[in-house]
């Protein structure tokens, strides 16, 4: 049955890429490029374990899919095009400044 309540990574991740999420994800559903990560909704099992561990609150559950079509499409498209991140990476050099800018 299709994924109906997916989780997504938002722009808050851009220039941070803390990747604490991948340490807590039981199904390895995070994929990343050089700037940020994305969730593969086909693999995500909606447990939400990643949400509280993100230092910049970049992950949330999509409760109203119709209202967040763009972010869903972006996560789906990019996650399918990029490799899985299965181990925590060092944050980007810009992460500390970006975190301050985001107010966390």
């Amino acid at each position, binding site marked *: *049955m299709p994924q*109906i309540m997916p989780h997504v990574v938002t722009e808050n991740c851009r220039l941070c890429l803390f990747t604490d999420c991948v340490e807590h994800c039981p199904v390895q559903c995070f994929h990343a490029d050089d700037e940020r990560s994305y969730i593969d909704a086909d693999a995500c099992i909606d447990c939400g374990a990643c949400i509280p561990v993100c230092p910049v609150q970049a992950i949330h559950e999509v409760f109203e899919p119709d209202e967040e079509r763009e972010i869903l499409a972006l996560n789906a498209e990019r996650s399918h095009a990029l490799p899985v991140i299965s181990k925590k990476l060092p944050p980007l050099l810009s992460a500390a400044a970006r975190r301050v800018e985001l107010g966390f």
Partner: protein
Amino acid sequence: MSVHSAETKTVRGACPQDCPDTCAFIYHVEDGKLVEVTGDPAHPMTRGGLCVKLKDFAEHHYNPDRILYPMKRAGSKGSGKYERISWDEALSTIKSKWTDIIDQYGSQAIMPHAYLGNQGTANGLTAGDAFFNRLGSTVAEKTYCESGSSTAWVMTVGPTGGLDVESLAYAKYIIVWGMNMVSTNLHAWPFVLEAKSKGAKIVVIDPFKSRTAKQADWHIAIKPGTDAALALGMMNVIIQEGLVDYDYVEKYTLGFEDLKTRAAEFPVERVSEITGIPAADIVKLAREYATTPPAAIREGVAVERSPGGGDAVRAITCLPALIGAWRHVGGGAVEMPIYEFPMSVAHVSRPDWIRPGTRVINELDLGAALTGKMKLDPPIKSVFVYNSNPVSQAPDAGELVRGLQREDLFTVCSELFITDTAKYADILLPSTMQAEQYDIMVTWGHLYIMLNQPAIPAPGECVANIDLFRRLAKTMGFNDDYWDLTDDEWLSLAYDWKSPALEGITLDILKQDGWKRLNVGMPDVRAPHAEGNFKTPSGKCEFKSSMAEGGNMVLDVWRSGYTEMQVGGYVDPVPNYIPPAEVIDSSPTKPARFPLNLLSPKPHAFLNTQYGNEASQMKRQGEQRIMINPSDAAGRSIANGAYVRVFNERGTFEAKADLTDDVGAGLVVTNVGHWPGLNRTGTAVNSTTAPRHANLGQAGVYSDNRVEVERI
């Protein structure tokens, strides 16, 4: 103006769900209110995360629909109309009704109905056993899940914990056989991924492309109910090609020659025809499994849910010994490690109170038992339901509802909510939820003993099951010391704390730390059957079972500790393939009227029916849907997203069609767990399932179900 500072505290707990993961909880309480439930980051299985089912668990405790007081029926049976009464009135009504029934029909006219709505030692599956054994009721055989597998497992390797699921991290070849792990054993999946990261191959055997199958290296789509044929076909290849570990077989197994003869009846061409799996794939699977040590099998309960389910579990459980997989850390089979926990059935269930000759009725037959189809003498005049919701979970729901509608049936239900079953009760009793009660949780998927401590007081007049049965015992005039035991005294007697498995572990330590690993060896070194040491009568892995001579049986834990009055019946000493009764092509007498085979696996966001009435979880799970192959949909003019009627001669329900290649032609898949009363027609999948039993352990045959699907 005063500045309010919230008083916050955390309390250690454990998950109550009927799930192998039994997660370690941390309850977060602010000003006396449960605000959040999180996973313990230090627990090696829980690892800080829970699952989608538990997302709103704190809020669930405050669901406004909870039953907070005893109530009596104030409308017709099934109307769901109730009015509040006192505990005194509830108990005196029960006493008066039961006394009359016992006087007129005898105590066996009363039957309990329980399952694993809560997994506690004191409040779970067996919470009412001692009371009902003392009362002299009919013994209820509780075989909704695992009984077929556990009989099969014990017949083959004995009551052993088998392979630790955490040891999967050390395997090089993992077969997940009939289990959607990422939905139903999520906290074991990281060990599978760890193995994969070290090069292991992950194979999933499942009739449809489940969430787990999509994550596998190789998904093998098998026809439902044909798993024994595949296992025997693999053995055929392994034996023919000399891939047997003859040294292990000679030292630690019994009946190899008989198994060899049986396997010879299953050449790959025949197995391919039975299972629908290409012959080359069967050969490849057998070769890879036998030559990639350590090889592990994660056995799913789904395998048992077909007429030959018991022998399928036996055949699969024979495989590791045949290739010597048990020699290695990470090799062997995971089924249910519950046998490592030294729980005392004698104390928990008090089978010594069962009167000689007491009859047994299987819970899956409750409908027929209540409607008179079983021609019982005495008839069932009262049923007491707790920890279970048979109108949703039992097969042939229509028959059961007809039984529960009987005006002369006195039904009592201890519940959290007015479920589809509870709405037929004459008396409703309010039950506590997990954060409000105290218990050692029974664990069937890992090797940690877990304590759940109450974090908040019970609301209204809710009581834990252990207290409920103390009250009932006093009401019925039982004056045994047993009913005066405190919770701690009772739990102290429920486990053998002096056993090696619990050495160094006490209730006080558990109160402090919440959980402890049993002393059974760590996952990176544990290889329980490297040198045999099976718990069977012969001490060997029994390809030819010595227990078969006793006939079909259900283990005592599923039947209130009772060992008499077993269903019996012939059991082949060597596992065989017993075909399904209803699936496609297997029943020429029942041709095309119901051409589709319906499977009903567990939901993703509910735990069976639990949380199926919680708004956020209903939104996550979505409405009742059915997966259908586009080719089957096209012939029926069914469009994607259209509502369809699913039916057979037993019943009907409606669902929204998902057209997908994740199911092959001829197969349809929906999930169990949606509350029938919240569905479009007041029914759900178990309106269509058959009230028959698998060949072992009286398991249900939920997967052996033919239906037709039509556009509405």
